[in-house]
């Protein structure tokens, strides 16, 4: 859904559970904001018992003191029983704010939260903060980080990507979940927003073009399909290389033009990586 159409979304009135089936199954529970789920009529254990991460969204353009105090009570309640839950705070709608103001807001929220928690005797609660907006890629990036924390094999994946990068002259590699466009792993070199954005737009291109011309696929032959692969050459000598790993995942690499000259080598290395990945997920199961 494009961001402009979210205007037409209605207010959430009950808990919506969206199961997401991907390389890893998880369920997103969308809570109505006006609901007080700490109320004893709700089954506390049912809600938080199997929870991996709690995402708390704060409207940065609005008065945020009251929602913040609600967040604090929630964190305190959860910490008592389920200290393993990752707490992620999205400082949302920052598109309307200036850069300086954004950081100020985030710092203010962090400070208040920390003070409040230490006042209540929880000194080392891990809370992560993300500045997000639906009008750019920051929301995807934030979700990526949330999901990454929930993946037990993350270390292994990163390691595999590192090996792939160093052996094929790749500058940056992302492992993307195609449907949601969040990346579930990347190599250990620092992520810059630009490369993430271009990769995520690249997926859009691939998905859209495939949709237009994919009608020729014979459904009977679907078993024997080859994984899609694609290359985009840019004017500044960079090359984007995409390879479909399985139904849900795609590998996207950024590299220099010289590295792709031996494309056979890159293809082979990616193939090896793909096999390794498959085995990692098999072990996980």
């Amino acid at each position, binding site marked *: 859904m494009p961001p402009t159409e979210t205007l037409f979304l209605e207010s959430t009135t009950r808990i919506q559970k969206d199961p997401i089936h991907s390389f890893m199954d998880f369920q997103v529970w969308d809570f109505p904001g006006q609901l007080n789920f700490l109320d004893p009529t709700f089954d506390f254990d049912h809600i938080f018992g199997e929870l991996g991460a709690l995402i708390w969204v704060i409207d940065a353009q609005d008065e945020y003191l009251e929602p913040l105090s609600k967040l604090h009570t929630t964190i305190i309640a959860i910490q008592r029983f389920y200290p393993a839950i990752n707490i992620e705070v999205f400082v949302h709608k920052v598109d309307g704010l200036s850069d300086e103001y954004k950081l100020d807001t985030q710092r203010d929220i962090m400070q208040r939260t920390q003070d409040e928690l230490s006042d209540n005797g929880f000194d080392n609660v891990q809370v992560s903060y993300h500045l997000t907006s639906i*009008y750019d890629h920051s929301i995807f990036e934030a979700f990526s980080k949330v999901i990454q924390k929930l993946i037990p094999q993350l270390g292994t994946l990163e390691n595999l990507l590192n090996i792939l990068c160093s052996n094929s002259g790749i500058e940056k590699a992302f492992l993307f979940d195609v449907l949601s466009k969040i990346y579930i792993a990347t190599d250990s070199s620092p992520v810059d927003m630009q490369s993430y954005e*271009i990769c995520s737009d690249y997926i859009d*291109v691939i998905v859209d073009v*495939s949709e*237009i011309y994919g*009608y*020729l696929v014979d459904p009977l032959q679907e078993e024997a399909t080859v994984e899609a692969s*694609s290359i985009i050459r*840019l*004017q500044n000598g960079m090359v984007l290389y995409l390879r479909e790993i399985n139904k849900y995942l795609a590998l996207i690499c950024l590299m220099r033009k010289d590295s792709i000259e031996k494309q056979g080598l890159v293809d082979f290395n990616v193939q090896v990586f793909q096999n390794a990945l498959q085995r990692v997920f098999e072990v996980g199961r």
Partner: protein
Amino acid sequence: MEERKGRKKKVLLMGKSGSGKSSMRSIVFSNYVAKDTRRLGATIDVEHSHVRFLGNLTLNLWDCGGQDAFMENYLATQRDHIFRNVEVLIYVFDIESREFERDLITYSSCIEALRDNSSNARIFCLVHKMDLVQTELRERLFNERRDVLVSRSLGLAITCFQTSIWDETLYKAWAGIVYTLIPNLPQLETHLHRFASIADAEEVILFERTTFLVISHVTRSPIPNPFPDRFEKISNIVKQFKQSCSKMASNFTAFELRAAGFSAFIDVLTPNTYILVVMPAGAAESATTLMNIAVARKHFEKLERDSSVRGVEKLGRDSSVRGAEKDSGVRGSEKGGGGVGEKDGINGN
């Protein structure tokens, strides 16, 4: 001189204030993304812009500010100036306009002025901001509006498009408009056909380089594609991607995708065009197709050069006259400083 005028096509862009003329122009010709158009202010009077399209065709775009005061001015004092030698009039209607009847009156006066001054101009009406209408109602509303517009066009033939800057309908409309302006189109199309059959391609689409509007396409696939609007869709997709490339201070030159049912290649064809070739699965190695494109490139470049040379030749004839003048000027300067001074004097007058 006549020839150069023929190649510079005057395109009028009119419509009520705030109907989205400048936004549209910025997206199609200046690589804005839809949301960037919020920054645009009101157009004051007429903004001229020259758009080079396909190298040798220049569109002389007159973006006419639509506030009532300007409109009156166009129709009264500037009537001749504005409406003379027009090749194309693009009139934009805001679907949300509360005074449709008043818009129609202005529209009719413009059509009348156009009929008096350049009777051969083509007229396109864009019913704009269709994204604000619910999807189910769009078709019906558009048909209604079209019927009204046709009836108010003083019997002149018009073409209507429904558009929105938020989806690919914008490209459909503009590709349709530009298509009518390309001079050597039949020739281009035969060559494209031949290329498609030699390369054994399922579909070949030719795009203009800067705007990525569809110039021409050839479809050879026996099974009809379920997306009749795919050409505009691809324009839109690629343009979006070009936008994200520009964030990396770059532009993309080539694209290839090998999927289960097909392979697609987008590559630079000539300095002014991109080509998209879609091959059926397993028909050829990708290197073969890339080679075919490379071979075709020389041919199409020649075609493009030829058509622009023809223009230059005609231009050359009248520029040779100017050349002679210059020669005499040089000779004059040989004689002495006085000659140059004299010439300057003439220019000054």
